[in-house]
């Protein structure tokens, strides 16, 4: 997993609540046995017209946001299916963080395993960030993972919560499976305990 310590980028506003994983990556793109090419189908039904041409009015098709690493989304981002293809597609497109007021549990878990930060802000900070993105769409913000802050132009810092274990994994690019494998003996003892099969 790629390490994530700091990231400075403009934000891509997609201010819709309850963006579900069927929007992030429609199910017809899940018939793959690898992780390749998913970025091209990120938000496919919002991004492309019936003939496959990009819709000019959709934010991800705006040349100005090319290379942006932060998605600014509405509440309850990533609800619905457990498909990890959703964070794979977001990461493949180039996003390193999604800012919202809340995330669906499975999505947040999946995102963290792919170096994608679900950055949760309180309502007041969120409103300021949205106001900033509207006022100055090109404004760059800085995410500092160890400090757990989002820094806005002018120096204002918004704190965000991050599970300490997940934060350590993110900053160190540590893969969880490596951690779990250290418990192989404890797992064996558990399996042998009290008549387990």
């Amino acid at each position, binding site marked *: 997993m790629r390490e994530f310590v700091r990231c400075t980028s403009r934000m891509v506003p997609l201010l819709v609540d309850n963006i579900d994983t069927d929007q992030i990556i429609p199910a017809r793109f899940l018939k793959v046995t690898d992780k390749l090419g998913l970025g091209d189908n990120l938000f496919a039904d919002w991004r492309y017209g019936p003939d496959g041409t990009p819709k000019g009015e959709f934010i991800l098709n705006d040349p100005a946001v090319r290379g942006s690493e932060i998605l600014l989304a509405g509440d309850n981002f990533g609800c619905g299916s*457990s498909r990890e293809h959703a964070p794979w597609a977001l990461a493949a497109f180039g996003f390193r963080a999604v800012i919202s007021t809340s995330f669906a*549990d*499975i999505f947040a878990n999946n995102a963290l395993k792919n170096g994608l930060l679900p950055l949760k802000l309180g309502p007041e900070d969120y409103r300021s960030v949205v106001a900033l993105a509207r006022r100055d769409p090109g404004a760059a913000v800085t995410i500092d993972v160890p400090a757990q802050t989002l820094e806005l132009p002018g120096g204002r810092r918004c704190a965000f919560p991050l599970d300490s274990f997940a934060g350590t994994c993110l900053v160190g690019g540590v893969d969880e499976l490596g951690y779990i494998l250290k418990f192989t003996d404890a797992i064996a003892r558990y399996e042998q305990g009290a008549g387990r099969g």
Partner: protein
Amino acid sequence: MTGPRAGAGAPAAGPRTLFAKVWDAHVVAQEPDAPALLYVDLHLVHEVTSPQAFAGLRARGLRVRRPERTVATVDHSVPTLPAAEATPDALAAAQIARMGENARREGIRFYGTESPSRGIVHVIGPELGLTQPGMTVVCGDSHTSTHGAFGALAFGIGTSEVEHVLATQCLLQRRPGVFEVRLTGRRPEGVTAKDIVLALLARIGIGGGTAHVFEYTGDGVRALGMEERMTICNMSIEGGARAGMMAPDDTTIQYVAGKEFAPKGKAWEEALARWRALPGDDGAAFDRSVTIDLSALTPMITFGTNPGMGVPIADPVPSPDDVADATQASALRKALAYMALEPGRPLLGQRVDVVFIGSCTNGRISDLRQAASVLRGRTVAPSVRLLVVPGSLAVRRQAEAEGLDRVFLSAGAEWRGAGCSMCIAMNGDQLSPGQYAVSTSNRNFEGRQGKGGRTFLASPLTAAASAVTGRITDARRLAAEGVRA
């Protein structure tokens, strides 16, 4: 396969919830500041969310730790038409083949396309007796919450976590909160489990259960059959709760008894003793609580683009002008624009093009019986395409033994093979852009049942009645009209 007897976790003193009992018994290790390492009793695997996990395992030179606790099938992208009639799909076929190869290589029990026990993973788990009270059950599928109907802690996981479980039979998890959903009162005639869960979702919204597990309590739960319990637990995830749980009782035990993988003989007696101790203790505390009075419910239907956007079927389409919160009003406006519905207009009578009866929510035999009770002696409206897709081949055989297939076919329905089908529209069964469907499935997200398709979620009764009239119809009203030629 047996459930747990003891865990390394230190159970909290005092009365415990059902959730706490199952969780505590499965904690293998707990380091300070780290999530709990939780043991998984049953890992269900399907073709769509597992290939990358098996590839990751091989890349690390690891094998499946407990193949006998792992069970695989193919359901999401399998055709429900006979091979000769199905449209060939090379990608889906490759994914299905890969599932078989991975299962064979790792010695995992596999219900493939040729298996008579094949079906939707959340239908066959209970049907085969793999799902048992007190277990931890995971699957790379959000509707794993279904299995909580047995008093199991069952939740969906991502593909990285599938790899973790394959490799170690364990998962790292933070302990969620417990949200009591108390079901009280007796439901009126014509109100189904689907209506109960749609009413819950309309009440709490689709993010209402985030970071929690639902624990359903109350007399209303005890009065439900196992398949009804599965319908409700299945859609717990649509309220943001990863899992929904119901304490095992006589209904549960009668259902599990004699199933292929249920414990037998002395092991059965031992299992019963463990299962009888699982219900939450009196006085156990919940983090949150909501009560649903079943006696006040009517059949429910969704009008919007998430499962929380549901109303009693006789209600009009809600108006954004009546919503005070600006964000919610704009979300409602967006949903109604997608659905091409006018605020204030009745939902009853709305045109329907396709009706889908099936899925892990409502694809079991009791669901098909309900649909057949409406369709018997009636015909599907000429403008409507009705698909009836059993949740498993065992459900299909049972329905045929009862003559339900003939009811569906003579009504003019398509009687299909088993699979997820039009719930997720990965296998060629899908809506065309702009079509309206009444569907017994679980999600009405934009494009969920086919790009541009518009979904009304409802019960099998409502779905069947709407197929007959070609309009959204309250099955109780259709019954009052009597049999139509």
